[in-house]
């Protein structure tokens, strides 16, 4: 049975600031949706809310996935329901190697365990996938993403270039094999070679069992990964939806064209945008 991520009338704020003002969107397994919009329009806020970031407060609306109210679940439980978020700005985890991080998260998602009460807090998670089997899985996925095996013994995102960080997000996605993947600007900060690299990785990982919500504010990523649906988020609302052709219209006409079409004043949201960090090639 095909599962469905259903977002309805979602309103979200941070502190007293309203960021999402009623977002509705449905993504089925096997579909690729692109969510586009200028900086500051609320794309990352939507992604974080879907994943349960504690700073984002849901004021109204609902999100269901696999028949569950996703908003009630902690981030780790959402991950175990096979929802995945590739971060726009992935976090460093000092002192934890990529290999060990990946094995821990693989076990967390695919072999979750309930420690007995007296073991709680002390339970090592050594009982998941056998080490040799995991190493094989990791080697395969790294080969698929054309990654240097030496990458596995580095510490998670420590000293990584922008491109390396994005590739590690893709490697995590490949290892966790999600059924709903939210990719937040996986194309940002990449030069053209790194972009192609990462896009090939996404394509290699995509499967008919995976629904994808691909967040971007450039059309260029969509040259590699073709969406069936394109949505435009402006000022906390989805103001336009269409097929792949909409991304080309956006590319040609810009967001001010969207604003004119929907009767919003020009260029309001870009004022609040954070500057995009300068990415480096992996």
């Amino acid at each position: 049975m095909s599962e469905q991520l259903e977002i309805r009338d979602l309103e979200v704020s941070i502190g007293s600031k309203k960021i999402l003002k009623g977002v509705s969107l449905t993504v089925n397994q096997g579909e690729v949706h692109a969510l586009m919009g200028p900086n500051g329009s609320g794309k990352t806020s939507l992604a974080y809310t879907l994943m349960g970031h504690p700073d984002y407060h849901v004021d109204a609306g609902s999100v269901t996935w696999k028949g569950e109210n996703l908003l009630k679940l902690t981030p780790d439980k959402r991950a175990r329901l096979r929802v995945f978020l590739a971060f726009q700005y992935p976090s460093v985890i000092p002192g934890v190697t990529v290999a060990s991080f990946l094995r821990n998260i693989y076990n967390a998602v695919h072999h979750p365990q309930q420690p007995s009460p007296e073991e709680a807090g002390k339970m090592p998670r050594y009982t998941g996938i056998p080490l040799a089997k995991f190493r094989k899985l990791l080697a395969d996925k790294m080969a698929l993403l054309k990654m240097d095996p030496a990458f596995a013994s580095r510490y998670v995102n420590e000293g990584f270039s922008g491109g390396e960080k994005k590739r590690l997000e893709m490697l995590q996605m490949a290892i966790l094999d999600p059924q709903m993947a939210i990719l937040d600007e996986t194309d940002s900060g990449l030069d053209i070679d790194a972009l192609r690299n990462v896009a090939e990785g996404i394509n290699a990982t995509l499967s008919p069992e995976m629904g994808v919500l691909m967040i971007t504010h450039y059309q260029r990523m969509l040259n590699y990964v073709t969406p069936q649906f394109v949505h435009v988020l402006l000022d906390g609302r989805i103001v336009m939806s269409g097929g792949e052709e909409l991304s080309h219209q956006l590319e040609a006409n810009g967001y001010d064209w969207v604003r004119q079409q929907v009767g919003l004043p020009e260029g309001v949201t870009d004022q609040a945008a954070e500057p995009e960090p300068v990415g480096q090639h992996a």
Partner: protein
Amino acid sequence: MTVLAPSIGFGASTIEAISDANDEPAWLRDRRRTWFERAEATPWPSGQEEEWRRTSLDRLPRDVELLLDPPRVRCELDAELAGAGVVFSDLRAAVREHPDLVRRALEEGDTPAVPAPEVGPAGAAPLQPVGSGEWGPGVTEFDSHDKFWALAQAAWTGGTFLYVPADVAVDAALLARSTVERGNVAYFPLTLVLAERGARVTLLDEHRSPDGQPVWFGGIVDIRSGREAWVRYANLQRLGDATWNIGAQRVQVGPGADVTTLNAEVGSSVTKVGLDVRMTGDGGTSRLLGLLAAGEDQHIDINAFQDLSASHVTSDLLYLSALYDRARAAFYGVTKVRSHAKQTSSYQECRNLLLSSEAGAEPIPVLEIETNDILRCGHGATAGAIDPVQLFYAQTRGLPPDEAERMIVRGFFEQVVAQIESEPIKAEVLQALAARIGSADVAEDAA
């Protein structure tokens, strides 16, 4: 104002009793007396000293009896190394079996401020300093633990003696394990490590005591390295939850020598350890590593003195603590670069991860630099909670909060753990820490 000297549960007659019970030679008996007099003449820390501001001794269980008959420290050495002249044994046994060597080692370590015993054994040969005197006594400005150093020199009843002759390499880590088996006692074990010119050695010095009953544990450690010696010393403190651990460690680094000490502080109710590192030989290197995992009402206070009195030396300190519940960690470190020490390099870094809103840390690094001719001298100190962004990131990958926290704490410690070269010692340290931080595998090699 009249200050009453706090009473301790033993006196000069107890010191004599140690010598009687062990049938000790006259020089050792005299040496104990001399040090006991000095201990009595040395005031207790008043709490006004910078090193003692953060730890009060009010509740130190002073009035307990001295542990006269501790179990021997378990030391194992293979026959081949013994044949090469390596001595590794319980200190009392070493006094009997290698009296001259132990005597030399002990007396050479006495600072010039200590009057040498006036009476020696009749007809004894003049003492030759071990290692041709290359480590020397160094300077004596580090005085925060003088009282406790003197008490331990006078009242040690157990300890570990390790001697590695010149150019002898001990490849496998040596393990010394000592356990205090009952409470309501004071115990001052002495660990003495001498690595002669070109010697190589790794030692794990593990200490335990029972939970629940007060113990005054006053272990002191004296490490001396000759020219180009290579020493790795790990102190694994797994003392019981009612033990007061007031210890001192002195490390003398000879010319071109390379010495790393690790203090893994896991147990005790209160720990107050003073580290005295004397970079007295040109081109020497020292690393002072610390891993502190504390919870409940544990209090751990480290003060360090890195004394750079020779040229082209490197001395780096890295202390990391993970603090749970209401635990407190204090760190006060002084790096002193002497005016005549050229082209030195040193760093002090103390980082504290607070895993509860009631935990607290106070890291204070101080630099005293008497010359412009330095390569590098710096410090860093931090104290804070886990970055919520890291926690969220790990959670979105399926790790429950407690598991994510364990992984992050273990990763935080990796900066020190990765520097433990001996795999068996690394495994033991991690196993001991796991009682507090839990176990998480963070450094698995993908190969």
